[in-house]
C-alpha cells in the first residue's frame, strides 16, 4: 500500500566551491507528510529547489511514481505534479489573487472564457480544502497567512500531488500555524503528499509521519517520527548533543535604566508605525518584545538606537533624555553613554559585508587608542584584538582577514555581538539575534545575552521567534499595529495567550 511518489538518487549540487548537496538519496511515500529537518545552510532548500526545477542538479536521478523525469524548469515539475510553497512567497504584490494563480497557466491569449472557468474551479477548490480566499483581492492587502493560502491554492490549481513547503511557519502567528496545519492535514486526507522543510523540531513532531535529517549538504538519517524525539533529532541535526532549554538563574532587577515615554514614530513613507509606546527596562532584566513582522518593531528599534528621528515622545537613558522630536543623539554619542545596538538586519545595517572581519570588528572604535593614533589605524593592534575576540566568541573560521560575507549567518552575528558587547553596555537593544543562525550558534548567542543580563545590563530583545522571546525574557510585551497590546511576566504566560495578542484579537 505504501508506494514512493518521489524518489531522489545520488543528487549532487555545487555552487562554486561549496557543495550544497552531496549524494542525496531520499524516498517520499505517497499520502504522507514527510519532514526534512536541518539547520540553516544544511542544503534543504537547495535540494527542494532542484526537485522543483529551479536549480539543475550536477548529477543524480529524480523519479516521480517510479518514472525517471528530467527537470529543466519549474514547468517540468509542475507538469509532473510537484508544487512548492517557497519561504519567500512567489507572488506579485499588486496583482489580484486570481491573476497570481493563473500566471503562466492562463490557457488563452486574450482573457475571456478561461478566466471565468478558472474562477469557478478555484472556488470549488477553496470549498473542498476550506481555504476561504477572496479571488479578487490584491495580494498586498492580504495578511501573511492568507498569502500562504494563495500559494497553496496556486499549487492545487496547477494540479500538484506533492506539496513542498519551505519553512512555512517562520512568519506566522501560533493561530495561523494551527490553521495551516489543519489545511495540510486535509490535503493529506485527500491523498496528497506533503514535504515539510523546517528547522523547528516541534513541527516535525506534531505533523509528520516520517522525517529525514540533513546536515552539511548530506542526509544523515531517516526515521519514522513516532520512534524519535526532539532531543535525538536535534543531536542528529547538529552532530552533537545540544541544550534545548536555557539555564537562567533568577536575578534581582535594579533601577529603571531605559525608559520610553509616549513614543510615536513614522516610517520613510510618513506612515505612523509606532503609536504612543511606553516602555521601562530595569538593570538586570531582559524585556522581550514579541510580534508578527511589520508591526512597528523595526521603526521602534531604529528610533531607540538613534537612527530614526521620533515624531513625539521621549527616550531616557539613566534618567537623561537622549531623544525627542527636536533632538536626537546619534548612535556614536549613544554608544558613549552605554547603549549598544545589534540591528535586525545584520547584513544591511550591522556589517559591511564586503569588508574584512577585522574591519567590521573595529567599527566605532577605529579612531580610538590603541587601535588608532593621529587618525592612522594601527593594523597590528587591530588584528591582535580581533584574534582575541574571535577566540572568545568562537567565531569560525578564526581568520580576521576573511571577507565578512564568507562567514555563516551565525558567525556574522557573533562578530556583531562581540563588537557591541565589547565595552559592557548598560543598555543593549537586540533585534532578531538568531534569525538565520544555526542551533549551535543560537545556544551561544542566547548564553551571551543571559550573561549580560546577569551582569546587570538592561536588554530589549525584539524577536519574531516566539520561542526565543519565551525562553530568554523576564518580562514580555507584545506589539501589534504600532501599539503595545499587552504585558506579561514571563513565568505565567503561555504561547497561546501571546499568539492571540500578536494577532491583535485579545
Amino acid at each position, binding site marked *: 500500500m505504501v508506494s514512493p511518489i518521489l524518489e531522489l538518487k545520488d543528487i549532487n549540487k555545487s*555552487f562554486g566551491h561549496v557543495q550544497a548537496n552531496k549524494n542525496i538519496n531520499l524516498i517520499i511515500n505517497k499520502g504522507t507528510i514527510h519532514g526534512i529537518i536541518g539547520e540553516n545552510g544544511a542544503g534543504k532548500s537547495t535540494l527542494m529547489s532542484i526537485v522543483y526545477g*529551479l536549480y539543475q542538479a550536477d548529477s543524480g536521478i529524480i523519479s516521480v511514481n517510479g518514472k525517471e523525469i528530467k527537470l529543466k524548469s*519549474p514547468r517540468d515539475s509542475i507538469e509532473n505534479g510537484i508544487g512548492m510553497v517557497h519561504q519567500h512567497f*512567489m507572488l506579485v*504584490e499588486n*496583482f489580484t489573487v486570481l491573476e497570481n494563480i493563473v500566471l503562466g497557466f*492562463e490557457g488563452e491569449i*486574450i482573457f475571456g472564457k478561461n478566466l471565468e472557468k478558472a474562477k469557478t474551479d478555484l472556488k470549488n477548490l477553496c470549498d473542498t480544502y476550506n481555504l476561504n480566499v477572496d479571488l479578487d483581492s490584491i495580494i498586498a492587502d492580504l495578511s501573511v497567512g492568507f498569502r500562504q493560502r494563495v500559494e497553496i491554492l496556486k499549487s492545487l490549481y496547477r494540479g500538484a500531488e506533492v506539496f513542498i513547503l519551505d519553512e512555512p511557519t517562520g512568519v506566522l502567528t501560533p493561530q495561523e500555524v494551527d490553521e495551516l496545519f489543519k489545511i495540510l492535514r486535509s490535503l493529506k486526507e485527500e491523498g496528497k503528499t506533503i514535504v515539510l522543510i523546517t528547522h523547528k523540531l516541534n513541527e516535525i513532531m506534531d505533523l509528520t509521519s516520517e522525517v529525514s535529517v540533513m546536515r552539511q549538504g548530506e542526509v544523515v538519517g531517516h526515521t519514522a517520527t513516532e520512534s524519535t524525539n526532539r532531543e535525538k533529532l536535534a543531536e542528529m541535526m547538529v552532530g552533537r548533543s545540544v541544550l534545548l532549554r536555557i539555564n537562567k538563574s533568577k536575578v534581582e532587577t535594579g533601577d529603571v535604566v531605559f525608559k520610553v515615554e509616549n513614543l510615536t514614530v513614522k516610517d520613510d513613507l510618513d506612515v505612523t508605525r509606532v503609536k504612543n509606546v511606553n516602555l521601562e527596562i530595569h538593570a538586570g532584566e531582559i524585556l522581550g518584545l514579541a510580534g508578527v513582522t511589520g508591526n512597528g518593531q523595526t521603526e521602534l528599534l531604529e528610533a531607540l538606537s538613534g537612527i530614526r528621528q521620533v515624531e513625539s515622545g521621549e527616550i531616557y537613558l539613566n534618567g537623561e533624555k537622549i531623544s525627542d522630536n527636536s533632538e536626537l543623539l546619534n548612535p556614536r554619542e549613544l554608544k558613549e553613554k552605554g547603549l549598544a545596538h545589534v540591528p535586525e538586519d545584520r547584513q544591511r545595517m550591522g556589517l559591511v559585508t564586503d569588508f574584512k572581519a577585522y574591519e567590521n570588528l573595529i567599527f566605532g572604535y577605529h579612531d580610538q587608542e590603541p587601535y588608532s593614533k593621529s587618525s592612522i589605524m594601527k593594523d597590528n593592534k587591530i588584528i591582535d584584538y580581533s584574534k582575541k575576540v574571535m577566540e572568545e566568541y568562537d567565531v569560525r573560521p578564526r581568520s580576521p582577514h576573511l571577507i565578512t560575507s564568507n562567514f555563516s549567518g551565525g558567525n556574522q552575528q557573533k562578530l556583531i555581538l562581540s563588537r557591541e558587547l565589547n565595552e559592557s553596555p548598560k543598555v543593549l537593544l537586540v533585534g532578531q539575534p538568531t534569525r538565520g543562525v544555526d542551533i549551535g550558534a543560537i545556544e551561544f548567542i542566547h548564553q551571551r545575552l543571559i550573561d549580560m543580563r546577569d551582569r546587570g545590563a538592561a536588554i530589549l530583545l525584539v524577536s519574531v521567534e516566539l520561542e526565543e522571546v519565551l525562553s530568554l525574557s523576564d518580562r514580555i510585551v507584545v506589539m501589534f499595529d504600532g501599539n503595545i497590546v499587552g504585558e506579561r511576566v514571563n513565568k505565567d504566560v503561555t504561547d497561546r495567550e501571546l499568539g492571540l495578542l500578536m494577532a491583535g484579537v485579545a
Partner: protein
Amino acid sequence: MEFLSDIASLINSTLRISTPLVFAAMAGIFAERSGVIDFSLEGKMLMAAFVAAVGSYFFGNPWVGLLMAIVACVSLSMLHGFASVTHKGDQVVSCVAINILIIGLTTALAAAWFGQAGLTPTLTNEQRFLEITLPFADALQNVPVIGFIYSDIISGHYIFVYLAYLSVPIVYWVVFKTSFGLRVRAVGENPSAVDTAGINVFTTRYKALAINGVLIAFAGAHLSTAVNANFFREMSAGRGYLALAAMIFGKWHPKTALIACLLFGFTDAMQIRLQGVELPMVGTIPVQLIQAIPYVLTVVLLAGFVGKAIAPSAIGQPYIKER
C-alpha cells in the same frame, strides 16, 4: 474665424509634436513594465530617424526606410537586453552607452556616405510620408462644427500621428487584457514568481524589448521622413528623455502617459506660438526662455506633482536565479 483657425493650428501642432513622445512612451512602458530600464529611447529614436531617412533615400520608398528603422531599433533593444538581461549588466550604463554610440555613429556615417557631418540629403515627396487628407474632408469643409473638427483637426496629419494615438489603446489592451501582458507585468514586479510559474524570465523580457524596438522606430521615422525631409544631427533633441518623463508622470500606464505626452506637446506648441509675441508690460520674452518651458515643466511635474510614482518593483534589477 481667425480665432478658430488659431485653435485648430494649436491642436494640430500639439498632436503632431506629441506623436514621437507617444510612441516613445509606449515603447518605454513595454521595457519598464518588464523590469528593464530604458534610458536609450533617445538613442534609439535618433537611430530610427537616421536609418529611416537613409533607407528612404536609397530605396526611394519611405516604407522601406521605416522597415529598416524597425530592424535597427529592435537590434539595439536586443543589444540592451544582451548586456543587461543576459549578462546582468547595469541597465542605465547600457542605455547611456547606446545613446552615446548613436550620436557619434549617425554623425560619422552621414559624413562618410553623404559628405556632410550629421546631415542626410533632402528627401523628395516620393521618398517621404505626406499629410493624409481623409475622405470627404474637402466636402465637409463648410459644414458647421463637424466640418471644423473633421476637416481642420482630424484630417490632414501624417500617418504616424494616427498610428501613435491608435497605439495607445492597443498597448493598454496588450498590457492589461492578454496573458502576454500579465507575464510582462509580473516579470517586472517579481521575476521569481514568473520563474516558479515555469515561464522563462529572460525570454519574456526580450519579447517586451522587441516590441519596444518596433514602437520607438515609428517615433524616429516620424521625425526624419514625415515632419522633416532629412536627418540632421541630434534631431531627437531630448524627446526620448521627455517621453521617459511622461511615462513616469503617467505611472507606467498608457492612458495617463498619453495625457502627459499631450501636455508636453501642448507646451511645446505653445512655446512656438509665443516666440516673438510681445506681452504687455514684459515685452518680448527671449526665445531661449520660452524654449525651456517644456523642460522646466518636466522637472516641476516630476519633482512636485506626480507624488510617489511607484515603479515596477523589480525595475533595474537583473534576474539572478542561482545564488
